[in-house]
């Protein structure tokens, strides 16, 4: 490295990015209602308070339901879209794929507002279900991106070989394609789960005041006394995210290695 300032800049950038996250566990274990240095002592009290909060438990349960549903639906839709985009040629393919991927760059706020207006005018009552619909829209592009790479690393002649050896289209998909893209499917599921679990905008707009974790946390920050227990919750969520994303990346890499392909980059 010829330019030492580049190294300093990189370091500074990383500190700026991650030091606030490191503060979460520090204050979550700090024995004080005030989030400020110096630290006053070690406690597990905030975690206890967090786990005894009934509303928080409902919010966590709702968020879990939403995240699991969104991850399942997005991944299934992603499988169809990715398979079609890799394998088949059809009129308007580029436009269709572009529209599917668009929510990735579209401001989420716009998606949420538009959906709110449409759903209300259609007379659909807001519920967890409407949150799920909105988040599927947001998550599907991620699923498609991950699964496209999984399907792309699959050598087409593998399928032809299976057909050549007497299998039908469906049994070929079941015996050859599915096992080989399974790591991609898992990794897509996990990433969609993570995105949906802490998604705020759609949850806030389309949730009709149902307790949902991200919205609930935001609300609790109005009460200074609640902040430390929210930091404890944050600590738990950070740990969960790291585990999930790590696992997802591991599955993605394993899938590529298994199919004999080359790694063309991923999330981590």
């Amino acid at each position, binding site marked *: 490295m010829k330019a030492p300032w580049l190294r300093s800049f990189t370091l500074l950038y990383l500190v700026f990015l991650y030091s606030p996250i490191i503060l979460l566990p520090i204050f979550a274990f700090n024995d004080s209602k005030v989030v400020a240095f110096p630290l006053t002592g070690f406690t597990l009290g905030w975690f206890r308070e967090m786990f005894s909060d009934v509303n928080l438990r409902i919010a966590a349960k709702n968020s879990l339901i939403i995240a699991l549903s969104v991850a399942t639906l997005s991944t299934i839709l992603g499988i169809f879209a990715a398979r079609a985009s890799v394998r088949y040629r059809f009129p308007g393919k580029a436009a269709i794929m572009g529209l599917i991927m668009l929510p990735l760059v579209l401001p989420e706020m716009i998606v949420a507002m538009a959906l709110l207006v449409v759903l209300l005018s259609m007379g659909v009552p807001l519920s967890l279900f409407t949150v799920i619909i909105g988040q599927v829209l947001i998550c599907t592009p991620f699923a498609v991106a991950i699964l496209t790479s999984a399907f792309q690393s699959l050598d087409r*002649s*593998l399928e*032809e*070989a*299976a*057909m050549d050896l007497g299998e039908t289209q469906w049994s070929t998909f079941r015996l050859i394609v599915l096992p080989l893209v399974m790591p991609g499917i898992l990794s897509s599921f996990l990433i969609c789960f993570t995105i949906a679990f802490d998604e705020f905008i759609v949850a806030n707009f389309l949730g009709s005041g149902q307790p949902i974790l991200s919205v609930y946390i935001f609300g609790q920050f109005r009460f200074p006394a609640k902040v430390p227990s929210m930091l404890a919750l944050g600590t738990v969520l950070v740990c969960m995210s790291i585990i999930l994303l790590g696992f997802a990346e591991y599955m993605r890499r394993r899938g590529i290695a298994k199919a*004999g392909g080359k790694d063309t980059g991923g999330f981590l």
Partner: protein
Amino acid sequence: MTFSDDRPTMIEFKDVHKYYGDYHALRGINGTIKAGEFFSLLGPSGCGKTTLLRTIAGFEDISSGVIMIDGKDMAGVAANVRPTNMVFQSYAIFPHMSVAENVGFGLRKDPRSKEEKARAVAEALEMVGLKGYGNRAAHALSGGQRQRVALARALILKPKVLLLDEPLSALDKKMREHMQVELIKLQRQVGITFILVTHDQEEALVMSDRIAVMFEGEIAQLADPETLYRRPATKKVADFIGTMNFVPAEILSETGNAVEVDAKGLGRVMLDIAQAPAKAGESPVVGLRPETLTLLYDDQKPSERETDGVIDEVIYFGDMTYYDVYLGGTDVEVRLSMRNVPGRPVLDVGEKVRVAWSPSALVLFR
């Protein structure tokens, strides 16, 4: 080379056409492939040879025409029920299965017992020289081993026709030459019709009973290797297979069984009509292979025909030396090859030489 003549027909093409949109990939393929034959589809990339192979396998529909395999029309017959199996260029070994699972994959619906199937797998592996490899993970194999697995996997179903799509192109030179011989032996052993797609003319000559040379979606010539090499039907085939010198010539007279030409630098020659394939509307040239030309050393007697020349280039290959020689004071340059035997020195650029040749080695393209 009469091997193929008295054999029953295994595959028959009748005016097969294939379009990809506007692109005319196969332009009227006709011909037969005999049972038990080692048949090669040879041509440069994009000539349609792989497309033709894939239409036999059933991976591509044909736009018009008929493909018969073993007397049955293959129209509407899907790949998974055709009596053909394929060895893919990439080998297409299932990476999530063991070697034995790969080889036994086609036996999934076979009514035989587990033990019998396991025995069949072991036999197939032994046949390709991979005895005891059954439990290995497929993705951990070398290129040559993958190819053997692909062969065993295809042959275990005892197909009527084995299709090989450039199976040796991914191997290094030594391994390739080794596998060429192994494939020939294997084909003799199992007696199944092999159809090989290759762009390597040497490989096709070495391995095949008969070869179809393809250019731009058409079969330019279908013949046994020797005929293909000695009597190419067109200038393009001659140029594609081995090295051939082309000398401009003038046709002096033609009768029913002979053609007299005046070849630049060689002089007047009388050719048998068999040396003059059908007209293609080109300006006439005579073709001659480098090994049919010989340098005469001082002590050697004059030959049937000889021409003076000047060496323009010397290319030394160890066992052989190639000389580029200007013929008889003209600007016609031919390449000739001489074996480097004791007592035969390698000559220098600029030396005057005598070149001996035989009219019977000439082919006329016009």
